[in-house]
C-alpha cells in the first residue's frame, strides 16, 4: 500500500482577554450576557460611527508575536475585509492584510513519545504565516427559517494566527493547540478556552505520497471546538482522503463542518473560487506605529516561556520530563514550584512529588489559584523542612497542607497548637506497645512462631492508638525488643 503523509495547517482565532472591545468601550467578554445587551453604536456599526483602537489589544498581540519569534513591524495598518453577512454589522470586518502587526515567526513544537507514530519524542518546527489583529463578528443562530443575530461578540478583539502547512499528523495538530493554549494563558493574553470560543481553530488538510513535495488540493475543517475534536476530525479526514485517492478519486477543495455529536465531518460548501474581499486600508484608523520605546515597554517584563522553563527545570533541577511538563503546564504553578524549591533548599524532586501528588490535587479539586493560596510556597517549604527534621512524619505533613490552606496559620503554629509533633518519649511509646501486645495474643503467637512480617501490623496498631504522632522507628525498636 502506498505510504501517504498528511499536510496540515491550522488557522486559529484567539480572543484576547482585554477589558474592553477592540474599537469601543463595551466589555470584551459577554459570556454570561443575554443576546444584544453588550453592544453600542460603534460595535453595531450604526451610521456615522468610527472605531477607536484599544491599545491593550496591540500590546497583547505584540506579546504573542514576540513569543512566536515573529518580527514586529514598526508600521502596520488596518484594512477592511468586505463581505455581506447579517452578523457583520458594517458589511466589512476591520482586519489587517498585507502590512499586519507581525511578520513570520515559528514555534518549535515538542512532540512527546505518546503522540509520536514511532513512540519516539521529536521536535517539529511550525512556521507562522500570518499574525494579525482583527475584530470578531456576531453570532447567527438559525431556527427553522428564522435567523437570530447576537451582536455581543462584534468587536471582540482577536488575533488571527495561521501556521504554514508544516504539521504532519493529527497528534501534532493537537500538540500545537495544547502548546498554544498553554502559551496564551502563560502570557496572560487569552483565557484560551476552546469551549467558550476564546480559541477557535480551522484545519486545512491534504495528503500526498510520502516523498513528494507538491501540495494537493486541501479541505478546510471548521467548527471544531475542542482539542480532542480537532485531533479526531483531522484523523478522520486524512483517512477519508486516503480512501478517496486509493479509490481513484480526486480530492476536491471542500469546506467541511465537524459535527460534534456524531463525530463526523459534513460538507458545508465547495470552494471553487477564492472570495474577493476587496481589501483596502481602513481610512478610519491611523496606522499602528510601534516605536522601539513602546515595544520595549510592552516586552519589559516578558516572561520565560513554558517550553524554555520546562527545559531548564529538567536541566537545573534534574526533574524527569513528566514532572517538568506538569510543573510548567501553568505559569503560576511553575512559579509556585520554583519559589518552594528556593525556600526549601532541599531536593527539588521532593518538592515536585509533594506538589504533583498532593498540592495539585487540592488546587484542582478546590479550584485554587497557586498565587493566592494561603498555603504559600514558603509554608509548603516549611512543612517539608519539618518532615525532614523529624518534627512531624510525612502523614502529618500532608494533613498540614489542607490545615494551613484552611486556617492561614503557619505550619509551626498548627503543629504546636494541635500537639502534632512526634512523640519520641520511650516511656510513652513503650506503654502503648505493651498495651497492643497484651490485646493481640494470637498475633504475638504467630510472630513468635516465625511470621516476623507481622511487625508492620504491630507498628501500625501503635501508630493508630497514638493518632499517628509516634516516632515509628522508635516504636518498631521497642516492639522488637518486647517480642524477643
Amino acid at each position, binding site marked *: 500500500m502506498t505510504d501517504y503523509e498528511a499536510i496540515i495547517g491550522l488557522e486559529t482565532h484567539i480572543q484576547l482577554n482585554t477589558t474592553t472591545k477592540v474599537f469601543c468601550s463595551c466589555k470584551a467578554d459577554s459570556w454570561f450576557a443575554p443576546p444584544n445587551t453588550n453592544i453600542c453604536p460603534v460595535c453595531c456599526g*450604526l451610521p456615522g460611527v468610527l472605531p477607536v483602537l484599544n491599545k491593550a489589544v496591540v500590546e497583547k498581540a505584540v506579546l504573542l508575536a514576540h513569543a512566536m519569534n515573529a518580527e514586529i513591524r514598526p508600521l502596520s495598518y488596518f484594512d477592511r475585509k468586505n463581505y455581506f453577512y447579517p452578523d457583520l454589522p458594517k458589511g466589512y470586518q476591520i482586519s489587517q492584510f498585507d502590512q499586519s502587526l507581525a511578520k513570520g515567526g515559528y514555534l518549535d513544537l515538542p512532540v512527546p513519545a505518546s503522540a509520536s507514530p514511532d513512540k519516539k519524542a521529536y521536535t517539529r518546527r511550525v512556521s507562522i504565516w500570518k499574525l494579525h489583529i482583527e475584530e470578531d463578528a456576531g453570532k447567527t443562530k438559525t431556527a427553522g427559517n428564522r435567523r437570530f443575530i447576537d451582536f455581543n461578540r462584534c468587536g471582540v478583539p482577536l488575533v488571527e494566527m495561521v501556521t504554514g502547512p508544516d504539521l504532519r499528523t493529527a497528534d501534532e495538530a493537537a500538540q500545537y493547540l495544547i502548546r498554544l493554549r498553554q502559551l496564551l494563558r502563560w502570557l496572560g493574553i487569552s483565557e484560551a478556552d476552546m469551549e467558550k470560543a476564546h480559541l477557535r481553530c480551522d484545519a486545512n488538510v491534504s495528503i500526498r505520497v510520502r516523498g513528494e513535495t507538491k501540495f494537493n488540493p486541501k479541505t478546510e475543517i471548521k467548527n471544531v471546538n475542542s482539542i480532542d475534536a480537532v485531533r479526531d476530525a483531522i484523523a478522520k479526514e486524512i483517512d477519508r482522503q486516503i480512501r478517496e485517492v486509493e479509490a481513484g478519486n480526486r480530492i476536491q477543495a471542500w469546506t467541511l463542518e465537524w459535527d460534534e455529536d456524531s463525530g463526523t465531518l459534513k460538507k458545508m460548501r465547495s470552494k471553487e473560487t477564492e472570495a474577493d474581499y476587496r481589501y483596502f486600508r481602513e481610512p478610519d484608523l*491611523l496606522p499602528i506605529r510601534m516605536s522601539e520605546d513602546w515595544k520595549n515597554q510592552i516586552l519589559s517584563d516578558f516572561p520565560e516561556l513554558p517550553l524554555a522553563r520546562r527545559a531548564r527545570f529538567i536541566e537545573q533541577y534534574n526533574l524527569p520530563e513528566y514532572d517538568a511538563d506538569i510543573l510548567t503546564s501553568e505559569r503560576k504553578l511553575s512559579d509556585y514550584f520554583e519559589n518552594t524549591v528556593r525556600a526549601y533548599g532541599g531536593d527539588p524532586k521532593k518538592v515536585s512529588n509533594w506538589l504533583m501528588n498532593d498540592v495539585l490535587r487540592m488546587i484542582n479539586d478546590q479550584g485554587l489559584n497557586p498565587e493566592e493560596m494561603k498555603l504559600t510556597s514558603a509554608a509548603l517549604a516549611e512543612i517539608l523542612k519539618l518532615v525532614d527534621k523529624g518534627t512531624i512524619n510525612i502523614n502529618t505533613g500532608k494533613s498540614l497542607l489542607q490545615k494551613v490552606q484552611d486556617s492561614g496559620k503557619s505550619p509551626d503554629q498548627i503543629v504546636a497548637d494541635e500537639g502534632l509533633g512526634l512523640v519520641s518519649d520511650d516511656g510513652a511509646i513503650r506503654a502503648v506497645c505493651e498495651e497492643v501486645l497484651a490485646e493481640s495474643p494470637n498475633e504475638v503467637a504467630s510472630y513468635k512462631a516465625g511470621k516476623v512480617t507481622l511487625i508492620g501490623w504491630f507498628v501500625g496498631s501503635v501508630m493508630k492508638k497514638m493518632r499517628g504522632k509516634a516516632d515509628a522507628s522508635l516504636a518498631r525498636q521497642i516492639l522488637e525488643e518486647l517480642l524477643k
Partner: protein
Amino acid sequence: MELCDLTALELTKMLRKKEVSAVEILQSSLDRIAKVDGRPGSLDHTTELTEEDKQKVHAFITRTDEIALIQAQEVDRKISAGEDPGLLAGVPFSVKDIFCVKDTCSTAASKILANFKAPYTATPVERMLQAGAVMVGKVNLDEFTYGSSNESSAFQPSPRNPWKTDRVPGGSSGGSAASVGAGEVPLSLGTDTAGSIRQPAAFCGVVGVKPTYGRVSRYGLIAFASSLDCPGPVARTVSDAAAMLQVIGGADPHDATASPLDMPDYLSTIEDGVKGMRIGLSPDYFRITYPDPKTGDLLSQPLPAEIENAVRSAAEKLAAMGAEIIEDVPMPNTRFGIPAYFVISRVEAASNLHRYDGVKYGLRTQQSFNDLNKMYRFTRNEGFGLQPKLRILMGMYVSAAQYSEQYYRRALRVRTLIRRDFEAVYDPRGKYRLDALLTPTTPTTAFEMAAVYGNSVLMQYADQLTVPANHAGIPGISLPAGFDASGLPIGIQLLGADFTESTLFRIGRAFEKATETESWRQVKPQVLQDF
C-alpha cells in the same frame, strides 16, 4: 433687515447685551423659513411642482422647532441667571442631514435611511449645542452627499438657489448653503468630500470652509469617502465661519483621525490683515481639463472670463493691502484630481454602504423573500437611488482583486502627487513659499436645474477646482466675490497648508473689508426681494 439677516456674532453680541432674546432670534429665523422655504423634502415624488414650489428654497427635510424652542429658552435662562451661555449662544443653525442627531431622523437624503433615528449625536453638532447654538432642523443634500447639485436627494423637491430659483444651489451641502443664503439661519453645518461645502457656498453667495482633514471630528457623520470627508461651516461672513470652526473643531476621543493639535484662537488674529503674505495664482486653476468622451484624451478649456476676472480682481485688492501676489504657480496634477477622486471615493463609498442591508435599521423590503441574498437585493434596490447604485458598481469594480492595481492603487499614487504639488508651493524653504493659493471655487456659476443632472461625469467636473484640497487634506475656504452677468454669485477659493485655517480667515476677512462698500455686497437674493 430682520434679526435673521444679522451675522451670528452680531446676534450673540446683542443677546449678551440683552437687546434681544434667543427666543426672539429663533422666531425671526422660523418666520423667514415660513416665508421662503416652502414645503420640506419628502419621499413623495408624485406631487407635481407648483409655480409656488418653484419660487421656494426647500432647504429643509426635517424641522426641529420644538427642540429649538427649548434650547433658546435655556439660553435665555442662562443669560438672565448670569451664566455663560456659550460662544454661539442663541444663534440658529441648520445641520446637513448627513449628521446623526439623537432622536431626530437622520436620513442622508436616502430612502434607505428615511426612518432611521440615531441614538446618538454627532460630535460637531454636539459642540454647537454645547456652545448655545439653536438647531432649527436638518437640511437637504444629495443622496448620501453623492452629487454637486442637490438634485439626487430622495427627498423632493430638492433645494433651489435663493439667488435664482431655477438654478441649483450646488451640492452636496445644497440645503446648508441655501438656508444660509436665504437668511433662514446664519450658520449651517455641512460636509465637504470633493467640494461639497465650497461649491454650494460659491453658488449661493456665502462663505464655506473645508477645514484641514482631522480638524473637525467625523464622529456621527454618515460616511461617504472616509479619507476625504470633512465637516465644516457654512456662514455669511468669514468671522462667523471662524467662530463656528472654533466651536466644532478639535480632538475627539470618538475619532482616531481627529487631530490632537491645539485649536488656535481664530477670532483673535482674523483682523490682522495680509501685509507681507505671499498669495499664489496658478494657471492650472484657470482651466478645466476633462476626458474626451469618445477618445478618452484629456481636453482643456479656459474658465469663463467673468470667473477668472473675479479671482484676478481679488488678487489686486489683496496686493493693494500689502500681500505679494505670485503668478504662474505650477499645480500640474490638478487635472488628475477628478479621475483619482472618482476611483478612491467610490471604493470607500461602496464599502461604507455595505451596512445598509435591511438587517438592523433603515428600510427592509416589503416583498417576500425566501433567501437572505434576495432580501439584500430587494432592500438595496428599493432603498438606494441612482447615485449610490452607480457608486457601488464603480467602487466594486475598481477595487476588485484583478483591477485594484490598475485603478485603486494607481489613484492613491496620483493622490500623493497632488499632495506633493501643495507641499512644494507651501514649503517655507521652497521656491514659492506661499501662505495661500487664490483660485476660483467653481468652473461655472450655478447651473439650471436639470441641466447637468443625469450626467454623472459632467456633474463631477463641477468639483475639479475643489477636489485637490480633499486629496491633499489641506484647508480651503470659498468666499463670495461678486456676480456674473446673469446675477449669479461667483466664489473665489483660498487654499492653505495643513492647519492654516487662521491664515485663510485673515485673508478672507481682509478681502471682505476691501469689498464691503462695493455695490454687489448690497444685492439681495431673489427670494428676499419681495420683502
